[in-house]
């Protein structure tokens, strides 16, 4: 199985977690490629290059990080048919921002689902106000995603 790990980041934390996921997947014997949502064209998203793991933070008042906004705009404009595409989400946020906690990633999640893609596994979350390490949580989260992908071959 080949994974594409995409990140949307403002402060860089998502990028590091995404890199750690790529390293972990490679260590488990999977093909895994890292990509920045900033330089990802939605037309490249298809079932053959997935499944996708998307690590995305939240900015300001529950918005996407700036680096992910062009990707969302392109998704909305191109509105590709993403039937058959499988993805998992790992959202970053800060419960200090109680009302908008971790909402950035949900914007991408809603759009992908709306275009026909299927989310697998639990919705991963990291809270910057906690003492948890983002990478540790992501590495604890990803085996469940892999198990579900393997249980339901595309």
């Amino acid at each position, binding site marked *: 199985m080949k994974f594409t790990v995409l990140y949307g*980041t*403002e402060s*860089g*934390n998502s990028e590091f977690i995404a890199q750690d996921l790529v390293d972990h997947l490679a260590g488990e014997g999977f093909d895994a490629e890292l990509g920045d949502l900033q330089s990802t064209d939605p037309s490249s998203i298809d079932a053959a290059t997935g499944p996708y793991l998307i690590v995305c933070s939240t*900015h300001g*008042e529950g918005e996407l990080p700036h680096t992910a906004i062009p990707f969302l705009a392109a998704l909305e404009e191109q509105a590709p048919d993403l039937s058959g595409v499988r993805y998992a989400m790992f959202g970053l946020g800060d419960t*200090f921002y109680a009302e908008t906690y971790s909402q950035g990633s949900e914007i991408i999640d809603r759009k992908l689902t709306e275009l026909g893609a299927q989310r697998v596994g639990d919705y991963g979350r990291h809270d*910057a*106000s906690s003492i948890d390490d983002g990478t540790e949580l992501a590495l604890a989260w990803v085996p469940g995603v892999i198990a579900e992908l393997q249980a339901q071959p595309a």
Partner: protein
Amino acid sequence: MSETADREPRIVVVGAGPSGCFVAGALRRALPAAQLLVVDRLPCPFGLVRYGVAADHQSTKNITRQFDRIFTKERVDFAGNVRVTASPEPGAVSLDELAERADAIVLATGLAADRPLGIPGDTLDGVFGSGAITRALNTHPDADTAGMLDRLGDHVAIVGMGNVAIDLVRFLAKTPADFAGSDVNDAALAAYQAAPATKITVLSRSAIAHAKCDAQMVRELGQIAGLRVEIEGAGSVDAEALDDRVQRSRVEALRALAEQAQDPRPRVTLRLVFGATPVRVLGEERVAGLRVQRAGAPATEPTTTDIAATSVLSAIGFAADEHSPLADASDVGGRVRPGLYRVGWCRRGPNGTIPDNRADAVAVAAEVVADLERGQLGRGPLDPAMPLLPAAIAADAVSYSDWLQIDQHECATAAESRSRTKLPTRAQMLDVARAGTSGA
């Protein structure tokens, strides 16, 4: 990288605050084999994350986990206790000396001085800069804690309403118990709490919709017990009618705060005044108040109002101080000349949060890499075996593993209900760093 290169590029970043760390990380990703060194004049890294971010905002300080990684896992070197100067000085390394050893120098020295109010009376006793207060609360080795926090008096006026001003409000209005889990300087906190203010007035030159603070910073004030909030000069601005989402959130948060924080017998009364421009600090030797020009005052009324105050805190931004190797900050590209770059606040002025500086650092790193690829940087004459720092400077430098000794010490010796207790002087930091090195 050009195929004619006979060795890997060598780059020194001056300043280990967020911009310096971000630019080093971005350079590492673009140049996996380059020799990268981040130096800082203090024995410790992280700049404003350690000494500027409010002591009660520990989650914001968690960004250091990311920076820790570039030094421990990505082969970026750190050398603290290294002063870089514009012209040669004893005990310091000059930019010219560095340029003989490195292909590129990136200045990430920030803006360390408080921007003065620039109005008559702004040097009166009792006028303090937000940076000076913040450094005292954050145990900065250059902080002058004496004679400041114990003399703020009963009515503190804050000029400016950005996030730094709101940080000051939290410090002034919170009770000592509210600092649990922080790394606030306990001596500074105790000095203030001996006679804390009961009135705080914050002046924003801007209208309510354009105030500089973030909505979340305003909402957080609602958690402080015993607070009464009054809003003045906001006019009848209707949040619903604002198109800009950030402005709408801010106005909604301010109105909600004023509605919610209405303790009938308040411990602290907070007045937030909009459209108010200070024109003079009043008083003979010591601050007695502020004269303020009010926007939109009826023509029949005087255009200025006098506000009583026992001290005035300026929170209107920062400027270069005398230690900056390059003084002027203006919003130009990162390249000062091929081989010398600047990033973050010392490039574009004191605006933007920590994440904003990441975007800036990525852009400036790309400029450095582009110059390297075009062969614009003198990579020929440098001896690949020459260290990036002169031996005398390197001998007194603090490495990243030395810093980890300081870090561990501060966390291990944290006072009760503190996340850490910072070592207050350079000498103490150096002692702990060296004890760790020699005691192996």
